[in-house]
């Protein structure tokens, strides 16, 4: 069973990685802890579930990319609108306002989802059912889970390439290191902030989209992932891609094994880890001090 | 009074204070000179406890305070001001000084009775403000003062701690040129009245020669000269580093 727990842990990690990546980019580049990140995740989930429902009966090779891309696009678009209308005023404001505005957005978006999609849960298991299962050392394991891990790695690789190899990424990292300096160097802050927020939102949307084939899209679906992603950022460290990856794996495996052996301990243990790291190493395990 | 021996402090690879030793006697006013980046403010930070040295010893009245936390040093009688003003800007001028008085009286932890009801502390704070001629500003918020007044308040706060040994980091920088000597006269009069030993960083040579009994010159983290003002000013290396005069 150890293998299955490990695989399950890595599967959790894949979601955590996708969700925390966006949260981390927004926190790193914009200095704002985005409490509405889970809501963007929910937007992606509902959009994908809705589309999968619309395309029911069609080939999953078409359904999956269409649903996922639409989820990314719409979550990113919501992110774009939020940044350009509200968050752009927040960079120079005090911490309490930065946190509260994203808290307000969270409430607002939750109900906006209800308004658009209705309060009912949306089931969208077609992609998972369509992919079937495979045999791993005597255990049947859904292929979809492996697909999720693959997608997370792919997304991670794209972000790594973007941040490390492109001009855009270098400018984003410059903002992350020193906002004032970056501004003085003539880096187009406005455009990059919008881009960073839309990118983070799009990643949250993708994570939400990928979860709906396994569990239905329900209201409030973004609350737990937000808190989990938050723990990953704390564990892995701020602004570190490697940290986000390793943090996700640590949290994912911890979840999977505690659920298997002593389920009551899952959440307390995760928060205890987060608190311990915050106290001993506030910059996270892999963040720069 | 104050005895510094073999003090060292590095930040990363750069050594800012390198083997500094000197003493300050009771009632003595010592000027600390040196070019920018010589480590003068670092030295004050080390003595006041804002920074801890890598090695060496700081003794005050025969007691070691090298690694003592700031509140212990203050209790033993060390006080300082700041070159770049450090005020409690959202508190009134009176509260800025009265907080120092409460610290001296050991009343910082008192709950319930309002600060204003402590008559003695309030009167004492007002007296100090009057000494520095800023008593009319008592009800103003720190943030609303002019740069010059902020600087004077900063120094007044150091005085309010009633120390035996005072560290003054450029107390007249930021004060209008016309007021510089007036402020300095006030400071020196207060020091003399109480007999406070003082280490003062000052750039203005006129002020240095008028007010200090001894001069220390710090350059690149070491003491270059230590003696009476006249004698030090004529020191060859001092002229080179401080005034750029090469003979």
């Amino acid at each position, binding site marked *: 069973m150890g293998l299955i727990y490990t695989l399950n842990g890595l599967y959790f990690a894949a979601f955590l990685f996708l969700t925390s990546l966006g949260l981390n980019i927004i926190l790193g580049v914009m200095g704002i802890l985005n409490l509405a990140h889970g809501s963007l995740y929910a937007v992606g989930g509902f959009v994908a579930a809705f589309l999968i429902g619309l395309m029911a009966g069609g080939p999953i090779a078409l359904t999956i990319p269409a649903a996922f891309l639409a989820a990314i696009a719409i979550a990113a678009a919501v992110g774009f609108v939020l940044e350009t209308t*509200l968050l752009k005023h*927040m960079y120079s404001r005090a911490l309490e306002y930065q946190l509260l505005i994203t808290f307000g957005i969270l409430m607002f978006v939750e109900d906006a989802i209800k308004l658009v999609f209705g309060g009912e849960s949306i089931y969208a298991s077609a992609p998972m059912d369509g992919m079937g299962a495979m045999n791993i050392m005597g255990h049947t394991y859904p292929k979809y889970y492996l697909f999720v891990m693959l997608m997370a790695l792919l997304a991670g690789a794209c972000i790594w390439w973007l941040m490390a190899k492109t001009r855009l990424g270098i400018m984003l990292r410059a903002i992350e290191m020193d906002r004032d300096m970056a501004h003085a160097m003539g880096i187009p802050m406005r455009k990059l902030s919008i881009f960073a927020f839309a990118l983070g939102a799009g990643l949250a949307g993708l994570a939400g989209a990928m979860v709906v084939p396994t569990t239905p899209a329900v209201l409030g679906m973004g609350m737990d992932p937000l*808190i989990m992603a938050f723990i990953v950022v*704390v564990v892995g460290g701020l602004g570190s891609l490697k940290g986000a990856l390793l943090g996700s794996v640590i949290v994912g495996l911890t979840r999977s094994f505690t659920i298997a052996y002593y389920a009551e301990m899952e959440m307390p243990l995760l928060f205890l880890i*987060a608190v311990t790291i915050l106290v001993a190493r506030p910059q996270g395990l892999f963040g720069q001090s | 009074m104050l005895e510094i021996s073999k003090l060292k402090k590095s930040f990363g690879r750069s050594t800012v204070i390198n083997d500094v030793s000197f003493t300050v006697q009771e009632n003595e006013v010592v000027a600390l000179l040196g070019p920018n980046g010589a480590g003068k403010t670092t030295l004050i930070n080390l003595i006041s406890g804002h920074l801890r040295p890598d090695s060496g010893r700081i003794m005050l009245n025969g007691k070691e305070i090298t690694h003592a936390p700031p509140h212990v040093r203050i209790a033993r009688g060390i006080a300082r001001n700041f070159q770049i003003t450090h005020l409690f800007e959202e508190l009134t001028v009176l509260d800025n000084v009265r907080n120092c008085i409460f610290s001296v009286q050991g009343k910082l932890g*008192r709950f319930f009775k309002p600060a204003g009801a402590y008559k003695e502390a309030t009167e004492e704070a007002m007296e100090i403000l009057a000494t520095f001629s800023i008593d009319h500003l008592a009800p103003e918020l720190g943030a609303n003062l002019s740069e010059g007044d902020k600087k004077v308040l900063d120094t007044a706060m150091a005085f309010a701690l009633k120390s035996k040994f005072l560290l003054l980091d450029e107390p007249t920088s930021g004060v209008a040129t016309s007021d510089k000597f007036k402020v300095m006269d006030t400071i020196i009069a207060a020091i003399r009245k109480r007999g406070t030993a003082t280490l003062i960083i000052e750039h203005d040579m006129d002020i240095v020669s008028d007010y200090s009994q001894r001069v220390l010159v710090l350059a690149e983290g070491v003491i270059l000269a230590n003696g009476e003002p006249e004698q030090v000013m004529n020191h060859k290396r001092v002229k080179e580093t401080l005034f750029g005069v090469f003979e």
Partner: protein
Amino acid sequence: MKYYLLNPKAAAYLVALILLLLLPQFVSGYHITQVQIGLAMGILALGLNLLLRYTGVLSFGHGAYFASGAYAVGLLNMYFPEHFSFELSILAALVVSVIVSAIFGFVCVRHTKVFFSILTLALSMLLFAILEKAYHFTGGSDGIRIPMPTFFGHEFEMRKYPFLIGPYYYIVVGVFSAAVLTMLAIVNSPFGKALQATRDNEVRAEMIGIRVKRHRWYAFVISGGFAGLGAAVWSFSAGHITPEISMWVFSGEIVYMVLLGGFMIYEGPIVGAILFTYLNLYAKATTEYWMLIMGATLVTLVMVLPGGITGGISSLYTLLKPKKS
């Protein structure tokens, strides 16, 4: 004492107290229960504002100390029903919330700014997870029912609702008044002034002999104690407690209250707590999309009225006041 009588605020406070005491003559029992909850939340909000306004740190996990107080009351009833009295409940709530905030605060005060907020949030979620998962002990997500207490040996021979809108309302007003005056004294005391000094300039505070972290820790514990006191008072009105009060969402709502009322003015958080209670109530009663209303209000508040209601009124007053020339 003389100081307070000379304070121009004293008259306004007295008027407010009389209005609160006379309120049951003018409004229905329904409103009395709501005002009661608002006053309890007001005690909590005052506690939070000791940190936000007077210490300069934002706790995004104050639900933890509120939950500590509420669960102290709940567990006292669950395990020692024969000792379940109002006075013991208050004492238990104070003791437990002070202990929890002393432990949590000890690690939190080492940080400021966003790290402080993140740490307080994480700690409150740790408590939430424990309260929810230790269901054998705490009742888990079902929570604990809180019955009517005895009051100094006196048993009220009435049903719960008349008790809440009758005697209990006056008890709440009493506790609330004591809390408001105590906190007012604290923020104006030498301790409070030193606290504000650490907020304005940590380095200077240290250099005048204030032990910054220790001072901040004391403030944290007092703040936690107020949260616990508010929770104890609230728990009887609510009649039922669940671990959700330790969740970060509730902690966010506490900050919401404080900002709604305005955190720059001492009384602001109280105004905010009462307004928030009503806003929440009306939003939930009017529409199924109440979160939309709460969210939109919060966003509007942050964007156009950062000083909150009291801040807005005070700047309006400054604007309209004839200028001295």
